[in-house]
């Protein structure tokens, strides 16, 4: 049976649209209101509260905890300070991505790993011979993402300690109006934002405080439809949509390496051995076959595709996740896995897998569009991601920006 998150008692009556999605065995609101525009506008314009409790959460402690993390993920844990968070993928021995998530270093020998899929077995397999304790706390901990330009101001008024000094991809233990929480400056929106981790028993109190205090700042609960739009604007990948986890791929072709997912920056090859390292060293040497890119669909060409049928262009009002082919000079050179009209940027965006060398910035391609049941092509250009990247995402007014994600 599906269960609600620790916030369900509050989110359920707010979900006017009765639009529930499945996420990690939980029900999560797709949209609260009958249309999702306001929720999207809140994330981009004020702040949205997104219930991200279904994320899988694993606590790793013990003298070898850093070694386990280092063995699993592609990034270098030795450079991760206590209080720092790393975004990272992790791979199978062939260097293909199994999952992606965040690693929070809560203490010298204390880590939190969040992931989209269950990873307990994989962690245990990799912990062989290590002195670590792995504890799943998925259901014990609720999580709210408070994302958007007003999020810092909202937290500042209710949080114990200097949350305004919390830097990008850092975490702090504190309390919000007496409720113990952990706040990390992380999120899935590409904007200024925080994720607030709270014991399940305190979840409702945290929700009530954020809603009540946030009201004057224009805060709004936001569902997964709006989240799926902003993450495309931020150029962030989604498992099972933009890539297939290696251990679920029934054919080789479906697997992707970090290099093929735009995550080359997370791969530190000259560190302690990690799963997939040898394969990734070899791949780096010969160069990846695929790259993951942003595309902007040319509006005029879309217009003419629709004009043929006497119609104005129609673009999806939320992210669509069916894969469509991409062509260059008549031959297929890739496929787009997520497409979304960006209300903020007023552009039709896509995230795509492209064969090298068709992936270089500025390359003109053709994307398949279906107009009146007929296949047509519109031009699209390879563009830099994140499409949406406001300076406030990384800036911390009190102290200069330092360190990367």
């Amino acid at each position, binding site marked *: 049976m599906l269960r609600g998150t620790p916030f369900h008692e509050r989110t359920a009556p707010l979900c006017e649209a009765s639009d529930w999605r499945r996420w990690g065995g939980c029900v999560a609101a797709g949209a609260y*209101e*009958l*249309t999702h*525009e*306001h929720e999207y*506008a809140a994330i*981009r*314009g*004020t702040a949205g509260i997104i219930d991200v409790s279904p994320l899988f959460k694993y606590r790793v402690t013990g003298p070898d905890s850093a070694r386990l993390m280092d063995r699993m993920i592609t990034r270098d844990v030795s450079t991760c300070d206590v209080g720092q968070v790393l975004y990272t993928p992790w791979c199978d021995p062939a260097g293909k991505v199994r999952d992606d998530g965040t690693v929070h270093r809560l203490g010298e020998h204390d880590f939190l790993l969040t992931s989209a899929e269950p990873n307990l077995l994989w962690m245990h397999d990799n912990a062989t011979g290590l002195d670590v304790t792995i504890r799943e706390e998925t259901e014990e901990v609720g999580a709210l993402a408070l994302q958007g330009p*007003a999020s810092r101001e909202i937290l500042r008024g209710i949080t114990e300690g200097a949350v305004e000094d919390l830097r990008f991809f850092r975490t702090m233990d504190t309390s919000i109006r007496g409720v113990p929480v952990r706040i990390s400056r992380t999120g899935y929106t590409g904007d200024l934002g925080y994720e607030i981790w709270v014991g399940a028993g305190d979840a409702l109190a945290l929700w009530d405080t954020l809603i009540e205090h946030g009201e*004057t*700042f*224009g805060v709004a609960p936001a569902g997964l439809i709006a989240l799926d739009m902003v993450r495309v604007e931020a150029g962030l990948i989604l498992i099972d949509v933009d890539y297939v986890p290696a251990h679920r791929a029934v054919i080789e072709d479906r697997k992707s390496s970090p290099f093929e997912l735009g995550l080359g920056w997370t791969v530190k090859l000259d560190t302690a051995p990690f799963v997939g390292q040898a394969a990734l060293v070899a791949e780096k040497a010969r160069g990846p076959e695929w790259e993951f890119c942003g595309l902007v669909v040319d*509006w005029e060409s879309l217009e003419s595709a629709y004009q043929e049928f*006497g119609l*104005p*262009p*129609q*673009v999806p*009002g939320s992210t669509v996740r069916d894969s469509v082919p991409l062509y260059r000079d008549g031959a297929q050179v890739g496929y787009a896995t997520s497409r979304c*009209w960006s*209300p*903020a*940027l*007023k*552009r039709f965006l896509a995230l795509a897998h492209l064969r090298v060398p068709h992936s270089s910035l500025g390359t003109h391609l053709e994307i398949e569009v279906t107009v009146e049941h007929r296949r047509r092509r519109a031009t699209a250009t390879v563009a830099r991601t994140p499409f949406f990247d406001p300076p406030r995402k990384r800036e911390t007014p009190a102290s200069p920006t330092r360190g990367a994600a």
Partner: protein
Amino acid sequence: MSRDSGYDAIIVGGGHNGLITAAYLGRAGLRCLVLERRHLVGGAAVTEEVNPGFKYSVASYVVSLLRPEIIRDLDLPRHGLEILPLESTVTPLPDGDYLGRWADHDRTRRELYRHSPRDAEAYDDFGTLMFQLAWAVKPILAMVPPDPLSMSPRDLKAMLRLGKHARDLGEKQFNALYKLMTMSSADFLDEWFEFEPLKATMSASGIIGTFLGPRSPGTAYVLLHHYMGEIDGVFRAWGMAKGGNGAVSESIASAAREHGADIRLEASVDRVIVRGGRAVGVALEGGEEIYAKTIVSGVDPKVTFTRLLEESDLPTDFAEAIRRFRIRGSSGKVNLSLSELPDFTCLPGRGPHHRGAFSISPSIDYLERAYDDAKYGEFSRQPYMDIIIPSMIDPGMAPPGKHVMSIFVQYAPFDLNGGWNDAKREAFGDAVVNTLAEYAPNLKEAILHRQVMTPLDMQEVMGLTEGNIFHGELSLHQLFFYRPAPAWSNYRTPVKSYYQCGSGTHPGGGVCGASGRLAALEILKDLGR
């Protein structure tokens, strides 16, 4: 003094259209100078902190169909433009009920059904027809109007295109378009709907900015403009700009600067310098003269031709046409700082309706009576109002917990009996607040500050002749090839190298920007660019 200022073009007036022209000319490589009389750009689209901490969109308050091609060409989102959704319209009714139209189709249908099951279905049929018509008319709005009497190949070709458009319409659509062009909005809507508040609220879009009532012929046509937004669909060309309407102007100014334009504030143009029938420069108040090969006016036709030029610069018949150009102001604006949200009797408490618009338009009779007052030189004792609460859409518009309210008011005639003065202005403000307080009784107590803009204020502060918000009425005899005058609807003027780019040219009106863009494209054509 050197005749070479280094500028290729000078644009008089830093309203949104002037800035758009400058941006497009700059994009094509021209060095532009925009001269703005006030201390900020935007003309009627400005945000000002009249009361400290409270930001007012002083005059223009929504983005009305800003052309998607302009948003794209100038990449306005990168320059800070954020258009936020205005999702609903609620019409509070004197009996304590209301009519709501919401973002969600089913919700709106249920709400209409509550009042009239018939109207609930007719509303969708009406929407489909209007979409078809708007789609058919859209290319006309986007074209440079031809001169119907000219035999030049270019005009003839454009007339043929127009004829083809009319022919391509189906019979039903053609008949409806003909009715739209000729009927009053009240009569037109009567053919479709029975619920008075629905008819009245819809007809109101046909009277905004005009000195006409809902029963005046010719008002139906403007209904169509509302459906243009549906075609632009995802562009959400209809909404409220984050930061108020000044933010729209600022984003365009930023794009213009990026394309090399200089914008001089507090630079009031006294006159356009004409030598041998050609505009060669401008003289500022204070005497400074600046020369350029191209002079463009973004101000309204009256100022463009009668104040900035000598009468002798213009052919007599043209000067006469401009003199006859109708530019009567009919609306006012009231901006309020509020200590708390208005609590509407019909929808008590705080709710999503506060994020949308409110229309005080309970019946056609109500609107027509409001017009009756104005016809005889008085402001409406019970005016039509279009209201938004900008701070509910962008909390940055007011201090935390406080609000600003924007009230568009009609009618307020420019030619008020006895003329406008401070007492009349406040009486007008009182009429607005008293009327609104009948629907939201806590309003009066909540008011921390009130700004009342009469048509005279809009003329004095923003330079809009007679306070007309559209640079001239949007009635049929002043649209398309007659805007602003026959044979001169193509952004040129009888004075060589003097162009017009304001809302007084086709298609005019609202923060749409098409005039500024089309003018720039015509100028570039003349320059062989």
